[in-house]
């Protein structure tokens, strides 16, 4: 027992000593994107630049909350998030350092913060995943609104607590207004549309025949097909420009509290370079956002996706309202 206590004391000291080292050639990254997708990029970046990157992986919304609690005491240099709402939350709190014009100009304006707090690095389209053995693509509507009709009752799954669904709701508020959005959400609730915890469970439910269709991001299905080519799910892109056809970026920003902003910008610039953009296209099935890099062969080109004209920086301030509406409709 005495030995145990000595061991604990020793380990506690080591643990305390192992906090971040602030060498100029190292970066701390908060990544809301998963280790499976991001780590290969980090490894390559470290090899190319010699900058050492320590990553903290967690959910995008959780990391945004953590950054808000940390304020200017954050150990993070860069926040790399899955959705504009999480990035916007941090931007609203004034925790980002505006990015250089050089970086911002690499990506079309509609994929970045209007004040330059963060930049989009890859795009993900909202789509309908449907079971191709039960539904014919020609029977699917041209936007999300008819899913509240009786014809679709109980057939279209949603993930009301998921970040990308909430971002979609916030976008719908911008496109259609608060009243129409609430009405649509209530219609979905009245139509008994099945609710899941996230995109992956919906894709899985469609592929296993549990539900016929669902509102998700486009790339989940492609990853499932990579593991098992016999899956029955297919992606459907709405032909009409509504919130349901929005391409939402994953993106990154530099924290104002960073003591190594130069390296932080180098990293973000690198994410917009050839290796990373090609990686997003080939490995994660996302849309590269820097013009000149083509999307994966299995995807329609990004230009062919009709997108509503909205400012993504306006999504985060609407996040709480979106959650309120979802709750008010009885979907939360």
């Amino acid at each position: 027992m005495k030995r145990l206590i000595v061991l604990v004391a020793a380990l506690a000291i080591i643990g305390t000593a192992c906090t971040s080292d602030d060498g100029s050639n190292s970066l701390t990254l908060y990544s809301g994107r998963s280790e499976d997708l991001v780590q290969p990029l980090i490894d390559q970046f470290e090899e190319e630049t010699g900058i050492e990157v320590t990553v903290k992986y967690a959910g995008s919304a959780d990391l945004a909350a953590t950054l808000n609690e940390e304020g200017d005491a954050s150990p993070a240099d860069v926040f790399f998030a899955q959705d504009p709402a999480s990035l916007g939350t941090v931007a609203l709190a004034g925790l980002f350092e505006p990015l250089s014009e050089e970086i911002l100009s690499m990506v079309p304006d509609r994929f970045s913060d209007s004040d330059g707090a963060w930049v989009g690095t890859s795009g993900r389209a909202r789509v309908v995943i449907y079971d191709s053995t039960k539904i014919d693509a020609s029977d699917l509507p041209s936007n999300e609104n008819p899913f509240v009709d009786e014809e679709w009752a109980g057939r279209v799954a949603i993930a009301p607590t998921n970040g990308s669904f909430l971002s979609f709701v916030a976008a719908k508020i911008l496109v259609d207004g608060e009243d129409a959005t609430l009405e649509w959400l209530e219609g979905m609730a009245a139509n008994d549309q099945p609710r899941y915890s996230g995109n992956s469970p919906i894709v899985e439910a469609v592929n296993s025949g549990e539900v016929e269709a669902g509102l998700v991001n486009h790339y989940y299905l492609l990853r499932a097909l990579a593991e098992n080519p016999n899956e029955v799910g297919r992606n459907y892109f709405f032909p009409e420009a509504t919130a349901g056809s929005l391409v939402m970026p994953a993106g990154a920003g530099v924290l104002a509290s960073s003591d190594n902003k130069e390296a932080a910008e180098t990293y973000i610039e690198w994410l917009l370079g050839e290796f990373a953009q090609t990686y997003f296209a080939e490995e994660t099935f996302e849309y590269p956002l820097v013009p000149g890099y083509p999307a994966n062969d299995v995807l329609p080109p990004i230009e062919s996706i009709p997108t509503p004209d909205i400012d993504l920086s306006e999504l985060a301030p609407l996040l709480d309202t979106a959650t309120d509406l979802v709750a008010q409709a009885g979907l939360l």
Partner: protein
Amino acid sequence: MTQARSAVEFDPVVPHGDNGIVRSRGRQAKAPWWLWLGALALVGPLLLAIGSLFLRVFDATPAAWDTLFSTRTLGLVWRSFALTATVTATACVLGVGGAWVLARTDIGFRRGWGVLIALPLVIPSYVLAMVIISATGATGLIADLTGYTFPSISGFVGSWIALSLSTYPYVYLITSAALTRVDPTLEDAARGLGATRTRVFRTVVLPQLRPAIGAGALLAALYTLSDFGAVSLMRFDTFTRAIYAQYSGRIDRSPAILLSIVLILLAAVIITAEWRTRGRGSIFTSSPSRSASRVRLSRAGRSLWTAGLAALVAVGTVVPIAVLGGWVLQGLANDVEFVIPWNAVVGSITGATLAAIVAMAFTIPTVVLIVRHQSKRTEVLEKSIFALFSLPHITIAIAVVAFTVTWLRPVYQSLGVLVAVYAAMFLAQSVSSAKSSLMAIDPTVDDASRSLGRGRFQTLWRVQLPLMRTGLLAGGALVFVTTLKELPVTLLLSPPGFSTLAVRTWAAADELLYTRAATAALILVAMSVIPVYFLSIRRRESVGS
């Protein structure tokens, strides 16, 4: 021997909290300050952190109050209660049944069953849920293998099954340990007086097991209350799920904080209910005069019990491991790269081992205080420790982030804080386990040591500690296993670069990378087999000691 107990049971005017043991001993030794210091050093800061988070209710926005007072909240309370009650009842039936048949009958292959039926404890509840979902339904594993379409399971039923499997091992493990301490001479006497075996079980064995079953049931109930993974995948709306939704869907933290406060009140109701129905006092049998003779099962009884155990092992252990193995194989067949996440293996072992050691170290003063110096204050301490176990981990994580960033900035996101939080939030498990060991020891043993000139500290070190050793180690093993499964606190509080198998499993499954998710989950299960083996065979040791 049972004087302490009957003194209370037949004395209705004894107010709650005025303990039977204390009465029968006639005096209450005042706790030395260092015991309090030891007991509070770990949980004190965490309670402060959560307290200061809760103080933010005074800044709560109108939207937060609206959320709280919406009609939905009542539905959440009701669903959380219903789920907790059914899961706890199921866990008790499965746990006590399993413990009795393996400890008291001559059923074959006991040691093997003992380990196998404890195994669901090590499978994270979200992995169990994921496996159940993918095994059932039209295209599920069961349909693939047998051609019979097993209806898909979700919602209440799905959550109930997944969480019952996750939690019955608590009841099973604590009850098995207690069964070996129950002196069989009482049962023999009852049998000799003509009572049937069922009657003996009901009127002699069960009442003696009551504290152990209660302790296991309380852990099962609070675990269910705090669970997010299973209910979220099963799409059953509980309080914890609502709290997570509020955290992730809003910039404003106050609705989630308000809901967390209501959840902790709910936990308080459960803890108090268990407390009040618990038989006060306890039966001291430092070691049974002999081990119990095993009941000879009839041929039909043997087949029935074996079938029951086999079904439990099939559903809780074999199916999950088979599905996980199936995912790995399917991925390999489709040329998915097979990766063993070594840094996560190291992270898991480091985090869980340290958490178990720290929890055990702080359990010692806590348990001595709670059992030997019982007072109103120790009661508050014990209830607080259990309340911590019931909180959604995201609430704990956010509270600790805010607290350490403000007050303990140098150690923010250090391994030390992560381990301390693990140990503090899971302390209820090791306290439960060690407490039942110490409670079974007659306090006159301590008095004897004191009267022989030993100081309090020496008595603790030389007498109490060795006597509760098995319970303490078992508690440490429980903390080890639960820490391995932990997710939200690990994600937010770990040092950058630190990863665990639970994190890898969750992240990969979220990206639909089943091969990787299953690989990490299988390593996690394999790693937990050793502590579970230890947990389920300790009753032999405790009889031997």
